[in-house]
């Protein structure tokens, strides 16, 4: 597990290229910086300046090597590498509030942008006009869309929103693809159709993720719960309330295990048992350094009692790797089926890469099914 501190400011969002040698991130301003790994160091090779507002979402398409960014200036840009320079193409999203998140579809022929205008813009490239065109999904979204994830069939899109619901929409664009085959979430999928809407959890949905097969969707919401829904004739939902602060991002690492992280600054493992349709807490994934146990003198004890009304010697220093909330998790190796490495970035400006095998051996009761 390695940790690299890029900046002092929070990293708003990040994205990796196909072979994981380059990372594009936004250092909490209007630019996107691309860093390249050489040896143990990271050097900045490109700076993408085009947005007029903070860049809130970046996604890097692995096959076509295009980057899409969206920001609070209500725009999205698609960047293509021409020689040694990244050239932007403006995409008109027709939104009147900030864009919040963006994701390429699995086949990279479209991307979806969630925004504060209570709608999702699904954009595809129109060959005749040589221009990116977008279609809106509006109903029944009542508030800002915070997070998006595509189903592997390139049609279904999961969206988590501030109206306390996680929904699965159909983003079928007849101009660029054929009719989809039926899935666990339904068979009729006209554009904008709601295939699934969550009930039961309250709180803004900060992170949403499809499993590798697309049959399960997990979401983390602001009332400190994580939930998984499995598609089928009737969708089965299982949720787990946690004793920690709310989680901000969630991803599947195998078909049954999820890793989530948030305001508590360390990643956490959850396991979903489909037979019991229940979720359980798998373990805390941080490896804290063993701090030397200092003995307390009687004087210190009385001072603690006087100041803090307790004789505990717990220091007010975070023991986790990240020193501030973790805002994004991305899978590096292995995909969502057999993830071997994943990466977290957060408000402390640092990026940590976690190795699943080492974590499994380090924590004794950890079992990743």
């Amino acid at each position, binding site marked *: 597990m390695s940790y690299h501190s890029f900046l002092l400011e929070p990293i708003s969002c990040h994205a990796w290229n196909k072979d994981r040698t380059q990372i594009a991130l936004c250092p909490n301003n209007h630019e996107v910086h691309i860093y390249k790994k050489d040896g143990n160091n990271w050097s900045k090779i490109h700076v993408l300046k085009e947005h007029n507002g903070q860049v809130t979402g970046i996604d890097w398409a692995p096959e076509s090597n295009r980057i899409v960014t969206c920001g609070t200036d209500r725009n999205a840009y698609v960047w293509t590498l021409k020689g040694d320079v990244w050239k932007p193409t403006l995409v008109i999203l027709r939104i009147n509030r900030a864009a919040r998140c963006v994701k390429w579809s699995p086949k990279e022929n479209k991307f979806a942008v969630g925004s504060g205008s*209570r709608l999702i813009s699904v954009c595809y490239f129109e060959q005749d006009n040589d221009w990116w065109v977008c279609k809106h999904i509006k109903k029944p979204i*009542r*508030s800002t869309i915070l997070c998006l994830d595509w189903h592997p069939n390139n049609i279904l899109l999961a969206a988590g929103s501030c*109206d*306390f619901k996680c929904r699965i929409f159909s983003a079928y664009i007849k101009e660029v693809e054929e009719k989809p085959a039926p899935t666990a979430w339904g068979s009729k999928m006209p554009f904008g159709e709601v295939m699934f809407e969550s009930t039961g959890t*309250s*709180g803004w949905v900060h992170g949403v993720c499809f499993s590798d097969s697309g049959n399960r969707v997990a979401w983390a919401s*602001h*009332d*400190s*719960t994580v939930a998984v829904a499995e598609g089928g004739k009737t969708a089965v939902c299982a949720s787990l*309330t*946690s*004793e*920690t*602060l*709310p989680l901000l991002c969630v991803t599947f690492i195998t078909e049954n295990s999820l890793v989530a992280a948030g305001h508590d600054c360390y990643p956490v493992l959850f396991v979903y048992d489909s037979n019991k349709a229940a979720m359980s807490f798998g373990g805390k994934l941080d490896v804290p350094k063993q701090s030397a146990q200092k003995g307390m003198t009687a004087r210190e004890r009385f001072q603690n009692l006087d100041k803090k009304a307790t004789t505990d010697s717990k220091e007010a220093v975070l023991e986790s790797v990240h020193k501030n909330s973790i805002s994004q998790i991305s899978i590096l190796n292995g995909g969502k089926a057999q993830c071997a490495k994943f990466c977290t970035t957060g408000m402390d400006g640092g990026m940590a890469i976690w190795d699943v095998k080492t974590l499994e051996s380090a924590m004794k009761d950890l079992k990743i099914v």
Partner: protein
Amino acid sequence: MAKNTLSSRFRGVDIDEYDENKFVDEQDEAAEQQGPDACEVDHLIRQYPSDQWDMMTAFHIALRNPPINSKNPAVKERAQVVVLRVLTAFKSSDIEPAVKSLDKNGVDLLMKYIYRGFEKPSDNSSAILLQWHEKAFAVGGLGSIVRVLTARKSV
């Protein structure tokens, strides 16, 4: 200048009610949510000094049937009064086993009542509620407090 500009009755209109973007929560049925049974709880509290287990039963009864979906503030007020009475009647040493006997949802519900009780402090209630809060926090953690803050349907 023929219009009467002195009338200000229009200022009484609540413009936010007519905003088409206004967020309205889903309407769930009020159903059987009448709040806990006050008489039963009273009876059990009176027997407290002699029988500790009666207190636990009173506690569990008080936490049953929370008026979460009800829109009637009187029902909620009544429920709050009953629960507060049970909480103040407990001895300090009995608080911890009582909290341990609750499941996750029970702890969340207890936290909601505790914070509701903080809203209207009276006499000794805050001190006792703080003791309950400490024990409930040890079991429920920060998550249970976050759920009190983010709950759309409160007690």
